[in-house]
């Protein structure tokens, strides 16, 4: 894939994950406000996340979208503010994205099953 095409693909993925995250974050904000108002406890969190398979599905997609969006965003910041570009930056971005996604899915599994 040419560098220009790769940039275009990353741009499109960044926007697509942004649209998904807009929905995820709105639900997350509403859930957070409800949760702290009802009294934040591990039992309450685990009861909610164990109540339906929709929660792990929701948070699984949320974690992967956030990891992808965050890694691409950090790559842009590194290029524009730190002038860190090229293969090293791309590998760094991919590593950050993969580690974040793995940590996110581990967290979802921890509170869901």
């Amino acid at each position: 894939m040419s560098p220009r095409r790769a940039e275009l693909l990353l741009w499109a993925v960044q926007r697509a994950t942004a649209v998904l995250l807009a929905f995820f974050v709105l639900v997350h904000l509403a859930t957070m406000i409800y949760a702290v108002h009802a009294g934040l406890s591990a039992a309450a969190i685990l009861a909610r996340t164990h109540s339906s398979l929709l929660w792990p599905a929701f948070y699984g997609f949320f974690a992967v979208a956030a990891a992808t969006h965050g890694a691409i965003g950090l790559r842009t910041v590194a290029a524009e503010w730190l002038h860190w570009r090229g293969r090293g930056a791309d590998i760094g971005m991919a590593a950050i994205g993969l580690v974040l996604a793995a940590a996110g899915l581990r967290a979802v599994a921890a509170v869901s099953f």
Partner: protein
Amino acid sequence: MIRPARNHPAWWAFLVHRLSGVALALFLPAHFLVLGTALEGGARLERFLRWTDQPGVVAGEWGLVILLAAHLAGGLRLLALEFLPWRDWQKTLAALAAGFALLAGLAFALAR
């Protein structure tokens, strides 16, 4: 000193969006690690949650909620600017973004 060319609402909106994005990316690993403690049962997660009852930590949470809401609102503004023919609405959108962030933070603070 801020250069005059940068001292306008669209530049501030860009800066808030970028800084909130970096801050959230730095916070995310800690968030995932804490939730991951539930793998060892709820007791350790519960101990951490009780630690977060301290006023200083609650203030930090409030800041994070504002950052998240600001990044969401700023992102929606960017999507609108890129995909909708609304260039003249930049200031309105930036104001709405700031207002939304403040409202979400306030709602969180009141609920906590």
